[in-house]
């Protein structure tokens, strides 16, 4: 969905198409252990945008499960998962990219959803409509959104 929109919006502008071509597609991501060494887009992430994605329901909604004391204005942070404060002191950027893209490569069977994955689901739907998707499934977050989230996580040092 989001990808479709991005594509449609980008059609006609050569630079947007070039950026698209430079992205690593979900199927082509190379994991080393749980980590992804290279940027998915080549464009540095924007930490402010990352923070917005992490607190927006329809996007990352990371705070549904994780508490982040560095975001005191965000109410009702979840108690499902480890808090993310200091996470950049525990993990490298490559490990964090891997965790956000597909945490199951780091923690087998984890409850955490894979945000950059498009295959291998049981009855995937079209977003939160409850209906079957039309056409190809888009990842929950775009490649650039993953980079933005990683950029924000990198600010969470002890």
């Amino acid at each position, binding site marked *: 969905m989001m990808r479709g929109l991005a594509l449609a919006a980008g059609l006609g502008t050569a630079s947007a198409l070039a950026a698209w071509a430079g992205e690593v597609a979900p199927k082509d991501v190379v994991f080393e252990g749980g980590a992804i060494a290279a940027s998915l887009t080549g464009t540095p992430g924007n930490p402010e945008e990352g923070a917005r994605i992490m607190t927006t329901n329809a996007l990352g909604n990371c705070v549904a499960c994780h508490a982040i004391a560095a975001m005191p204005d965000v109410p009702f942070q979840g108690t*499902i998962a480890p808090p993310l404060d200091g996470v950049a002191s525990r993990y490298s950027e490559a490990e964090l990219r891997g965790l956000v893209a597909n945490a199951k490569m780091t923690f087998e069977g984890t409850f955490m959803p894979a945000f950059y994955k498009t295959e291998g689901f049981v009855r995937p739907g079209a977003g939160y409509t409850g209906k079957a998707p039309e056409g190809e499934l888009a990842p929950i977050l775009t490649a650039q959104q993953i980079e933005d989230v990683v950029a924000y996580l990198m600010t969470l040092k002890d």
Partner: protein
Amino acid sequence: MRSHATTLAAAALWGLGSLGAALAGPVEDTLTVTTDAGEITLVTTAPAPEHLRDVFDTIYSGWHFREDETRDLERDDFDNPGMVFVDRGRDMWNAEIGANGESCASCHGGPESMKGLRAVTPRVDPESGKLMLVEDYINECVTERMGREAWGMTSNEMKDMLALISLQSRGEIVNVAIDGPARPFWEKGRELYYTRFGQLEMSCANCHEDNWGNFIRADHLSQGQVNGFPTYRLKDAGMVTAQQRFVGCVRDTRAETFKAGSDEFKALELYVASRGNGLAVEGVSVRH
């Protein structure tokens, strides 16, 4: 139990106490309901049924996980917004809606004749071998005995009637059969319960078995019991059946849901109901 420890630790460590997240476990409270016929105390916690012993020690009604104001609405039939729908169901019960002027009452007498049914459904009908929800029994009468078109699974008529019929079993202990002819349906339901659906790859168990007591954003996760259904849901300002709730929970995993009344969700309702064997039917509960 593990989830409680985690939550408490989380609240202490990350200073979330002020957000109310520290209220982790089920609230300790007793549900005594004031009804026209006096007071009745409902069993809202019970030892886990045998088949769940390796998972839970104790089972809890979802009532224990709601805020004070929401819990209070269920303590008095006068305050319970679900009772309006029960009344509508009673009118329909007495209405001569059949092709030949039959009403439910003309065959069954008063709605009290339905006492006990809710506590043992879903169940396998011994004659047809089909798994029957209360909704299926209702539709069997509507179509075969009254000559009408079937009611939609989540239509207003259906939900009103379900509310009336469920209320007749209020206080009775849920005891759905899981053996004999029910076994294959139950096993199918159990398989669905542990299947990680959708793009979020989440099973019922991920939320209601591994994380009950925890908060997923502002939502205090319960054990996902169906003993309270149908429920008046404040968020929807209307009645919600167990089948509808399943649709909602599966949709929230970014999955293509099954339909209310599908074979899959019927089997799932039997399985989920069996996880609540030991809790009281709440008739029409109130949730947020």
